[in-house]
């Protein structure tokens, strides 16, 4: 029970921080013609969750931290609902082509960076393990 509450609290805090960072980046990019902010957030968040997942695959983080950073921060920082809204907005205001470009950059960029992050996280974790480091 206590552990479950700690996880919920840590997800809440992570979600707050991830959302605030997303909001801050959105404010900086609001005047651009293309929603670069959302692209940047989704790509960076995918990389970070990749590193965390790759690292955690070998070394397990303490429960509440893992959920707080992964589910809370990365989850709150990235977004699918805004992506859907952006795509529809671009499709209506500009062209179907522009909306397709937006989706393709998000999709391929996000998956590529997630794969790179997984690899990087696994590298670091296995090197540390070989060195006999406890962390």
């Amino acid at each position: 029970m206590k552990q479950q509450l700690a996880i919920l609290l840590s997800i809440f805090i992570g979600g707050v921080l991830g959302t605030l960072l997303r909001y801050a980046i959105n404010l900086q990019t609001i005047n651009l013609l293309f929603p670069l902010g959302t692209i940047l957030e989704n790509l960076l968040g995918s990389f970070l969750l990749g590193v965390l997942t790759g690292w955690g695959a070998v070394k397990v983080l303490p429960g509440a931290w893992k959920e707080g950073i992964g589910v809370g921060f990365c989850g709150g920082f990235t977004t699918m609902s805004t992506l859907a809204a952006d795509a529809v907005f671009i499709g209506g205001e500009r062209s179907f082509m522009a909306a397709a470009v937006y989706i393709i950059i998000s999709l391929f960029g996000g998956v590529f960076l997630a794969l790179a992050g997984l690899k990087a996280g696994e590298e670091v974790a296995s090197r540390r393990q070989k060195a006999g480091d406890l962390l």
Partner: protein
Amino acid sequence: MTILLVAVGGGLGAVSRYLLGILIKSRTKERRIPTAMLIVNILGAFGLGLFFGWVYREVPSMVYDDLRYLFIGVGFFGAFTTFSTFSIETSTLIRKKKWGDCALYVGSSIIGSIMCFVLAMMITAG
């Protein structure tokens, strides 16, 4: 006030995603594609569409001074849905070379989210 609304909306969105994800996982069998986040993302896009259609009757832009938009749109639904987990789950399917499942997961997530968003807007915007 502005920042507080974004923050609380985001925190609630993330916790709701986690709890709903657990609920879906406990009720569904192991599938070829990760259904929990697929359902959460589609549901979140649908919810954002309902909100946009109802309040703005269009996809709003430049409404960063509207507190409802900040709390519900940027905060809650922004954090309720996720792209990072989607990327990781897609990567996992790629690593397992499950190309068919991968295409199904990517297609249903992206097209499903967009279509449900549009459908929801049509329902509320009339």
